[in-house]
């Protein structure tokens, strides 16, 4: 999978590295600000009230 991505990305090694870092950063930002906030309420962690 990663080998395939590396081959598909255009440019020389330097350009590939920059593109890969940008893609990884983008994936991280989407996870952190979009996916994780949606996921968090469904994780049964840190329930603090009684009776419900």
């Amino acid at each position, binding site marked *: *999978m*990663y*080998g395939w991505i590396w081959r598909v990305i255009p440019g020389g090694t330097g350009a590939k590295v920059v593109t890969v870092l940008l893609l990884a950063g983008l994936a*991280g930002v989407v*996870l*952190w600000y979009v996916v*994780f906030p949606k*996921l*968090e*309420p469904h*994780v*049964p*962690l*840190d*329930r*603090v*009230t*009684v*009776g419900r």
Partner: protein
Amino acid sequence: MRALLRTCGELSITGGLVMLLFCGYLLWGTSSYTEWYQRILKQQLLDGPKHAKLAKIDVGDAVALIRIPRLGRDYEYAILEGVTSEDLRRGPGHYPGTALPGMVGNFVLSGHRTTYAAPFNRIDELRRGDAIIIEAPEARYTYRVSSKKVVYPEAVDVIAPMPGHPESRPTKAMITLTTCHPEYSARQRLIVFGVLSSKQDRRSA
């Protein structure tokens, strides 16, 4: 076959990294939301009560500040009304319908232990006699820790006006803090009880 195995391995490693990142989000990412909202609540308290009467606090409104000297000089959170998961993301919440600060009955607060700035992370360190200071708009109430216990989540009697005695009429002004136990778990609840020991009226400006 080899390519398939390699892809499986790569996906597993990616999944593991995503989970690690999610743990980081739970511990640190959630806190930034709480810290941001705490500033709004503290400002609300500085601006003065929205209603003339304290008895009319709406869900989501700031109630008072809580300070616990045992947990550090800087330990200060704004308490808000309400204990839904949305309320508790913003700070420690007061159970609607339970007593207000200083009143006879039980002033019950819940707070997160490990996520969302973890206001009640260290309440297990409280010892008998430790001060829990509630800075309400009208007065400063100092409660003293009387006992602690670990209960199952169904134990609603801990939030009764007389904790442990749901049938009795309250005679004392109590405070009750609830959070999860053990840390990172939803299995049990850690409960800290306190009794009002002094009240200092605020000079109205």
